[in-house]
């Protein structure tokens, strides 16, 4: 706890981004309580209203309060990012650890698969797979997770390759520890730090991927609000209500910035060589 506090004191950027994300999570949880209106309550009389005292950010094409929709969309965005990263981690990290640890032809083959997957333009694959699996947020994010997995596998493998030649791992092996035990007790704890940094950075990519898929109509499905889908609707009405496109875009931008900044801060905080500097 004190370590965390002292880190935060030293790293303003990290503190701000962590604070922002914590506040965002809080807002997502509290959205039903603090949002001024229901995110789906429509009002034919107030379609595309400009910002006012009653509607701070105006209303959308169906007369719904934009601020309330923005708040209620946080949940879907965070869920989407976390889901994509979790899927990527669940597939990629174990494969990376095992491949790096086992080595030999197995590692060679896995590396080849990883390289292949890395040469896929990510969102293209996600779009193709979402179309096939059926349109919806969860399917879309699973597809994005699949796209993330080779990055994580490669990182985990590289870390394992370094650590498995460390003296303490050799020692454990000499004492007859099983491979699983070595992976679990020695390799994972030591290799996980760069992976955590990468996971944080991928959260930002997941957020942007969710927004892109929702913009294309392949992600979050109505009436659930989503920043990407709000932008798609705003684009339809751009000639009539151009101001509609700013709030959801800024929300995506700031959240992605916060994930990235937190990742960078973690990289510095967790990297022993950097810390010494």
């Amino acid at each position: 706890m004190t370590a965390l506090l002292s880190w935060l004191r030293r790293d303003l950027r990290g503190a701000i981004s962590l604070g922002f994300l914590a506040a965002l999570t809080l807002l997502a949880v509290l959205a039903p309580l603090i949002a001024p209106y229901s995110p789906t309550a429509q009002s034919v009389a107030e379609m595309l209203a400009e910002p006012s005292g009653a509607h701070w950010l105006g209303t959308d094409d169906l007369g719904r309060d934009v601020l309330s929709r923005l708040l209620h969309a946080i949940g879907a965005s965070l869920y989407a990012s976390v889901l994509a990263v979790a899927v990527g981690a669940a597939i990629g990290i174990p494969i990376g650890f095992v491949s790096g640890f086992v080595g030999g032809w197995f590692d060679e083959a896995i590396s080849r698969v990883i390289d292949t997957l890395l040469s896929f333009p990510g969102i293209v694959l996600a779009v193709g797979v979402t179309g096939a699996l059926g349109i919806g947020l969860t399917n879309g994010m699973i597809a994005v997770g699949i796209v993330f997995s080779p990055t994580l596998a490669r990182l985990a493998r590289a870390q394992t390759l370094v650590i498995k030649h460390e003296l303490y791992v050799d020692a454990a092996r000499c004492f007859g520890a099983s491979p699983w035990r070595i992976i679990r007790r020695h390799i994972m704890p030591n290799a996980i730090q760069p992976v955590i940094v990468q996971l944080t950075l991928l959260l930002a990519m997941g957020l942007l991927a969710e927004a892109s898929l929702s913009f294309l109509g392949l992600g979050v499905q109505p009436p659930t609000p989503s920043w990407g889908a709000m932008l798609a609707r705003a684009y339809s009405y751009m000639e009539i209500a151009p101001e509609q496109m700013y709030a959801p875009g800024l929300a995506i931008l700031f959240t992605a910035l916060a994930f990235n900044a937190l990742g960078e801060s973690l990289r510095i905080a967790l990297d022993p060589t950097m810390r010494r500097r």
Partner: protein
Amino acid sequence: MMGKRVRLALRRAAQVIPVLILATLVVFLLLHLVPGDPAVTLAGENATEEHIAEIRHFYGFDQPLAVQYLHWLANAAQGDLSHSLISSESVRTSILQHFPATLLIVGLAMLLSIAVGVPLGILAATHQGGPIDTAVTSLASLGVALPNFWLAMILVGWFALQLNLLPATGAAALTEDPVSALRHAILPAVALSAGGIAEVVRQLRSALLEVLSSQFVRTLYAKGLPPRLILWKHVLRNVGVTLLTVLGILFNRLLGATVVVEAVFAIPGMGSLIVQAAIAKDFPVVQGVVFAMVLVVILTNLLIDVLYSMLDPRVSV
């Protein structure tokens, strides 16, 4: 010396084939392990069970997956990427028609990324820790986090709809009307290049910092060479190698990002093609587009590898 390079290139080229086969297999499995029967969609209105079975047989959907895949692969090896289930168009023709528009905006975006990113990256690295460095790296962070389709919307709103400077939609063929083609490509390319510039700046800055803090450069400083000379003569030589690496990453990333940007600008490129095909479950088209994109990415990487070995003699495979 030349023989070695040719051998290297050939060896790399030979490695491309298993990677391609693997890539197509992955896509094929992802698309076909999914429930649903395209034959029903194809049969259309008033379709009877026999009619559907007929269509299933006609397209070979009743064959085992392995047979379907090998059949596809055998045809693909001869340049036949099958036909669209919806419009019967040859997938290869579709791809050849849609790729130029995509390549134009991606190419232009890469040029922009380098033209803006390289000077900024050098500026940041040579002023490390100073206000210029802070400003440039902050901009780069912004570029990474910026949703490019949102930037595209803003550009359409400002430059096309309000100021009427550039076209809001569509594309023109570079071979038919170069001026119009470039005018159409500018806004999409700018929207794409935000992320590209950020990537170039970050990679170049960190590569340069590494060189600047290396023993070799420190020795040069110790020898009393003027800092400007050191930068131009010794450091920038390393920029080429870094740039090559970045180009590969950039190309791959922009090719992906173009999907959403094309939707904003209604550009008839590979992105529009795959989005429409994916929604309509037109599997041969999805498969073909992914295949073509992977092929292009892999060939680009191959080319970069070969160039890399020429620039940096230490690299050998």
